[in-house]
């Protein structure tokens, strides 16, 4: 699913995977709390915009 979203939005899946885990970490999410497909797409779009503006 992460792979699919990365492809759909047009971002690197490895970087997106790192970003998802960073979000889980800073939001204090438990292992059983995961993002829906729709939420992943929103997160991916925001991530893509952030990277396009020069964010790391």
């Amino acid at each position, binding site marked *: 699913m*992460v792979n699919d979203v990365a492809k759909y939005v047009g971002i690197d*899946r490895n970087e997106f995977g790192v970003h998802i885990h960073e*979000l889980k*970490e*800073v*939001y*204090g999410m438990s*292992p059983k709390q995961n993002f829906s497909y729709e939420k992943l797409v929103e*997160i991916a779009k*925001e991530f893509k915009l952030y990277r396009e503006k020069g964010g790391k």
Partner: protein
Amino acid sequence: MTISGEFTFSIRDENLDFFDINNRLKLEPTKIIKKGQGLNNTLGTAPYDIWLYKSKIRENDHDEFDRLEILLEELSPYSNYIKEFKEKYEDVSINCYFRSDMGQIGFEIPSNVIRNLVTLDLKLNFHILSYGEVESPQEADNNELL
């Protein structure tokens, strides 16, 4: 190594005494998050205070759990403080963030790592992302798979 990722020692609650934590754990936190802090537009502001100390898996590590072994050794001098934090705060634990190209994922946790976890009385949370690939027949032969 087919798995990349990191291990994070995390203390989380709605209200942490960061001064006290930093004073007791003579470890430079990798990250400090304050409740209400802006983090991400999609997900909103931070719901918790979080103190984080991270150890990243390196490409040339012999085993995925090498970094966890080192992390636990770094934490062991503070085992009494960690026990106090566990009583005081909502969550004190180790998070393993694993990412793998492979759809089939397996790993072994060395017994000394388990022993150190028990001594520190810390739970181990796994967060796994798999990109769903399969090994080539050659890779499978090299791994002596059936």
